[in-house]
């Protein structure tokens, strides 16, 4: 198995003394799904945002798809990584002035320099996969949250990425809209997509993930397979967190 993400001792501090990331090391192999859990402010978003260069870090080393980045944040390498890594955000972040299909074809046409017709054809295929091809001509504001998030997934897939990052993809959705997004993500995992997912969805983590990584105050507390993590977590801090989640 080829490792897709290798992080070694990532450390980042926003202000002196307060660490967003504290010696974080992890490995994600090809075709695997890593779920990152933890209380808010534990640094999980910061962690996955370093994977495509949206966040810098102060110390440590990162190897994404064989491209090595360090704290110097080499712009060229970051660009190379971004062309091969897709990201889905909590607030969807679709471009409101572009139609759904234009949102999806934007990067293939402008970054990969593919022909528009070809990009549109593939975009329609992706929208079809996501079950929203009837909305192709609409604008993001005309869609529900769940639909927008599926568009965002299609947009990330349009670059044919080798790694997908999800930053709390269902946290901004109505409860009854969460499943349509989670189902789309499940299908992607079944197709063998390598994914790193920050989420609070225990069901998704149990069914889909290969590893669960639990963070608190910038540190990795434990990394376990989901069956162990959810039934018999090794650390007291993880068990406390899971108890809190269960109460909701």
């Amino acid at each position, binding site marked *: 198995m080829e490792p897709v993400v290798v992080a070694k001792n990532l450390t980042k501090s926003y202000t002196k003394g307060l660490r967003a990331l504290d010696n974080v090391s992890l490995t994600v192999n090809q075709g695997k799904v890593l779920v990152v859990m933890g209380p808010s402010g534990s640094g999980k978003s910061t962690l996955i945002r370093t994977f*495509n*260069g*949206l966040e810098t870090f102060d110390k440590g080393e990162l190897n994404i798809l064989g491209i090595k980045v360090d704290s110097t944040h080499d712009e060229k390498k970051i*660009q190379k990584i*971004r*062309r091969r*890594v*897709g*990201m889905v*955000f909590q*607030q969807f*972040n*679709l*471009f*409101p*002035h*572009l*139609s759904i299909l*234009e949102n999806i074809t*934007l*990067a293939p046409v*402008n*970054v990969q320099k593919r022909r528009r017709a070809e990009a549109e054809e593939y975009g329609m295929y992706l929208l079809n996969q996501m079950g929203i091809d009837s909305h192709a001509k609409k*604008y993001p504001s005309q869609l529900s949250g769940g639909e927008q998030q599926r568009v965002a997934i299609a*947009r*990330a897939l349009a*670059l044919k990425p080798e790694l997908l990052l999800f930053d709390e993809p269902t946290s901004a959705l109505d409860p009854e809209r969460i499943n349509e997004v989670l189902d789309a993500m499940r299908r992607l995992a079944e197709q063998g997509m390598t994914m790193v997912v920050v989420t609070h969805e225990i069901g998704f983590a149990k069914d889909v993930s290969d590893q669960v990584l639990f963070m608190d105050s910038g540190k990795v507390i434990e990394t376990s397979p989901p069956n162990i993590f959810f039934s018999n977590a090794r650390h007291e801090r993880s068990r406390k967190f899971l108890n809190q989640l269960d109460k909701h």
Partner: protein
Amino acid sequence: MTLIIFLFQRLRKTLFSNLSNSIISLIFILIISLVCLNTFRWLIFKANWTVVTSNLPLYAFGSFPPNERWRPATWIIILFLLSIITLFGPGWKWLRKNLLISWVATIPLGLYLLYGGFGLSPIMSRHWGGLTLTILLTACSSLLSLPLGIILALFRQSSLPLIQKLSSFYIDVMRAIPLIAVLFFGQLLIPLFLPVGIEVDRVWRAIFAFTLFVSAYIAEDIRGGLQSIPRTQIEAANSLGLNQFQIIQLILIPQALRIALPALTNQSIGLFQNTSLMAILGLVELLGVGRSILANPEFIGQYIEVYVWLACVYWMVCTIMAVLARHLEQRMTINQANF
């Protein structure tokens, strides 16, 4: 019938509910009717509208040679037709897509029709005038100041301190100088600075001065638009691998323009009215034509007629501009991309 009774009852309730209200209402109704009566009497019986009717071509074209007047006339008619098509035309997609291009194309077309050359007899810009010149000044200055304003706004947001400071300095200075001073600078000082032999005609000096001035204001409007775009838009674009230039061109500017559109409309209507300042500086645009007609002994003393007429023309053109802008805004919010 019931409607009239209803209105009557309503009036009684709102205007004559008690004694003091009735008195105040009566006084105001009296004043308003007197004003209206006098205005209408003046408009219809007292005013001598020959000063307007006999000079209509002058108001429209200034001293453009009479047998070439069809050229500016064609241009104004095209502009008018384009406005009507934009507002009331069918919503076919190809039509809407080409409308924006047509609007921009009217400016070179207007310049060609006025200047001549390529088959048309050339006409010097000092013969241009009237409404034609007013519209030309507005259109050219708006078209030039928009890109300049966008560049200034982007520079003001730049992370390079030198560029950012220079742009801020320029914008602050331009906003601290009255427009009339900038126009004086354009008309009187630019010829002194230019090397001997190079001459920029007066119309272009005016357009240049207007552009310098208005672009500073436009830059601030667009900066407001840029600042209201959430940072997450840039993050999303970044994560898709778009580079800095593409993000500005594809994500930031289209959104900033849409947000700034009402303010930009304001600027162009203001610009249209401010072109009348050029009358003081010797261009015979719409107001200039009015002044020169008043200087004619035949029409001496007929200020009110001329200025009422000019006010109506300015009002009409401004209304058309405002309606067009509102239409553009609506289309942008419904259909967010097409004109």
